[in-house]
């Protein structure tokens, strides 16, 4: 009885999962084709000389980045946009990060009316440049908060524009990122009100409520910077990582963004905007409480809270993704750091599931409660667990001689080929978006990794995720230092 229940359950689960992947692939294809059609006649440069262009605050926390900080800040300052500021939050670095910034950009301390709308560790001093050429730069020096979240919050508090781009100092950002990422915000009607009910007896007016769908965040594709040819923050040539581990990650990122996020974007149910690159509506982010500095998955956490805030206040919202790659991030080059990163992600996911459990299956939270979070629970969170139990079960059946090996092999082959297909499609969609990489050899070389992934890379992911859950259960103190928390923290 229990056994048939289990087997049927797993069968239905598997079918749903495969169906979801197919659906996402289809939705993302539609999204990409639509994006391509639109970009064939969109001239983003029109934003450059318009007085109507929305302002953006670029926020990048830095911790002990002395070696590369100057180059990275310079790269951020040369983004193609007109109304923006760059806020570097020096999160209590113990090296010469701040001194270098002060010397290079001719900074002086200023009396800055800093409004602490989100509580953070104390801010020591704010700096502005005396050179007009760097007047877009603001540097915040604060006491170390042991998390990127705390530093980002300080940046949000000091930001002067309505939108903020959250990124990392060590990310390499494409020059036209702000132009492209702000477009989805401008494609929805904003700030509209609607009258409801009879005139109010007190004031004589008919009361009005917000009535417009507001884009609260946009994201874009991230890729790995490991084998990129970069010169002082300027990308010279894009190539897939040469080493095996980063190469698998690149493939995984493409699948997660181009197929996953784009697909979800088409269903208007994006679960997460990456901490590596995301453009947010500042007001909503602050009202939702900013980043949670105690979270292991602060990026997913803030997006969930922003959505919940919008729904609580009966406002319509959307999160959008664009398929083009706007950000390159250094991925873990070796197994040690990689295992830490993935364990952390696993733990973060477990945390999100428990913190936001009240939203699950709650019809008040519409798609968030009925689609986004349940999907994450069943197919992101539980997948490694079910997979692990499945393998144990199979071993048991095999040992007791209850397996029809012929059928088992057919099923296995099917699942294997299906996963290869999904990955290949993701790379195909990615190539439709833009011809990344220079030669066809590089593309095919990456696509062929799909054949090895289920055997080599996937078991690792499952193992690290399970380890993350385990650490979460036993409440293990985080063993990783500041460095790992800052870098290599970009959830896909």
């Amino acid at each position, binding site marked *: 009885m229990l056994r048939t229940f289990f087997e049927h359950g797993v069968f239905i689960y598997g079918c749903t999962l495969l169906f979801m992947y197919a659906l996402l692939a289809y939705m993302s294809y539609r999204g990409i084709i639509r994006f391509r059609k*639109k970009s064939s006649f969109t001239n983003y440069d029109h934003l450059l000389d318009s007085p*109507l262009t929305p302002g953006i605050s670029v926020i990048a926390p830095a911790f002990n980045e002395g070696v590369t900080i100057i180059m990275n800040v310079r790269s951020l300052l040369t983004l193609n946009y007109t109304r923006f500021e760059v806020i570097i939050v020096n999160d209590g670095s113990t090296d010469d990060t701040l001194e270098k910034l002060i010397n290079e950009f001719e900074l002086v301390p200023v*009396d800055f*009316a800093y409004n602490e709308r989100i509580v953070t560790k104390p801010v020591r001093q704010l700096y502005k440049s*005396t050179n007009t050429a760097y007047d877009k730069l603001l540097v915040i020096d604060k006491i170390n908060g042991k998390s990127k979240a705390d530093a980002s919050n300080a940046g949000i508090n000091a930001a002067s524009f309505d939108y903020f781009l959250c990124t990392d100092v060590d990310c390499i950002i494409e020059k036209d990122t702000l132009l492209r990422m702000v477009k989805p915000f401008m494609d929805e009607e904003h700030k*509209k009100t609607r009258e409801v009910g009879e005139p109010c007896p007190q004031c004589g007016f008919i009361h009005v409520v917000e009535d417009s769908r507001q884009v609260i965040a946009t994201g874009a594709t991230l890729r790995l910077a490991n084998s990129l040819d970069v010169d002082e923050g300027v990308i010279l040539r894009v190539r897939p990582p040469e080493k095996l581990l980063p190469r698998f990650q690149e493939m995984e990122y493409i699948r997660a963004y181009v197929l996953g996020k784009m697909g979800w974007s088409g269903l208007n149910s994006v679960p997460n905007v990456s901490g590596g690159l995301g453009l947010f509506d500042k007001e909503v982010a602050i009202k939702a409480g900013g980043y949670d500095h105690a979270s292991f998955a602060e990026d997913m956490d803030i997006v969930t809270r922003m959505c919940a805030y919008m729904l609580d206040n009966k406002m319509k919202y959307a999160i959008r993704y664009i398929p083009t790659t706007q950000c390159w991030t250094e991925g873990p080059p070796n197994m040690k750091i990689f295992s830490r990163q993935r364990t952390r992600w696993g733990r973060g996911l477990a945390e999100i599931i428990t913190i936001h459990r009240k939203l699950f299956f709650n019809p008040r939270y519409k798609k968030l409660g009925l689609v986004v979070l349940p999907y994450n629970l069943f197919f992101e969170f539980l997948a490694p667990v079910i997979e692990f139990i499945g393998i144990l079960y199979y071993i048991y059946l095999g040992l007791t001689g209850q397996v029809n090996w*012929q059928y088992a092999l057919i099923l296995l082959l099917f699942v294997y080929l299906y996963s290869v297909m999904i990955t290949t499609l993701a790379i195909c969609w990615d190539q439709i978006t833009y011809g990344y990489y220079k030669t*066809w050899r590089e593309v095919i070389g990456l696509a062929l990794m799909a054949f090895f992934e289920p055997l080599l890379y996937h078991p690792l992911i499952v193992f690290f995720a399970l380890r993350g859950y385990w650490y979460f259960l036993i409440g293990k103190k985080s063993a990783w230092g500041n460095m790992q928390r800052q870098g290599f923290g970009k959830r896909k």
Partner: protein
Amino acid sequence: MYIQVPEFLEPAWNLFQGAPLAIQLAMIFIVITTVITLLAYVSILRNRFRGYQRAKRLGKLLPLLDNLIVEEVLANQDPLAQTQPDAVQLNLESFYQLPLHKKWARQATTDRIIHFRRNVRGNPGRLLRTLYLQLELDKDNVKQMKSSKWERKVRALTEFIEMDIPIADVTILPLTNSHNRELRAAARHAYIKLSKNEPFKFFDVVTDPLLMWDQVELFRIITTTEDIAIPNFARWVTYSSNRSVVSFCLKLIVHYNQLPAVPAVKQLLDTKDHYLRAEAINCLGKLRVPDIEDKLVYMYSSQPLQCQIEILKAIGRIGGGQHIDFLKQEFLHSTNFDLRKSAAKSIVKNESIANKILQELLDTADPGRLLILKHCMNPLIKY
């Protein structure tokens, strides 16, 4: 039913017939997934090959093309020449050595001419347009216009706008009612730019909202088209029932500094939509309407936050000087940080009139407020 199965598939076929449904499905899907994967590979390779070919062809064509265009358009330009640039007969001989009988080459030429026009205007700009017409590149675009695909129509309209080629109203007007939003927007832009009669007519009829992006495009078109008659936008501020049109007109009123529109904008101070009200206040402030300050101060206390901020800013911009005390009051007693900051900014902006009050505030304010004042007075901090 008997199906002829090739010999090597015989075992698989036998297996398939004897298997339970789930296994049968799995076997079918094995075939399907394999086919799709192969197709994806073919598509990737085809895509790459085409990209490679295109790059190679363009690599050969573009340098030649650039030289020809530069010579033809920039070399012989003489601003005092008698002939109008539109009427010049260009020497096209050398252009015919290019493979212009091929569609891709014509498209590349068009794109290049547009690229040039984004860099130069004046006489050479008009010569570029003449070149486009005399090479008959517009014919491709007219064809594209007739395509049934919306994105091609939009592309065609964008090209006509860039090249400033007039289109008949009868062609554009139906498109302004298209079901496709992008096409509708592009048709509106084209109408404003290219229609000879009443370019702003669509402001009267448009019912769907002008999105921010549309507004950016429209703003650019309206403010860069040279021979467009700018109407008094007050007309739509008063009569339009489309709030995005009203909001957009407010921005145009500011841009053209249309003082005659002030009475219409003042009317908006009574609107129930607080976003629109805030925009109206912002507009009045930027126009520096002197006699509005009293009214703004009078209505201040009953306003939502965004309107209050705009009122404080407007008073700073207008700078009449009668309401410095009001600013000081707000600065000292408001509980909201943004209000305090806006008030302080406005006081600092009117330093010449308010220097006494400013000094007094600097001497007496508590540390938090002093910080705000210093922030606003620091020339290094822009916002």
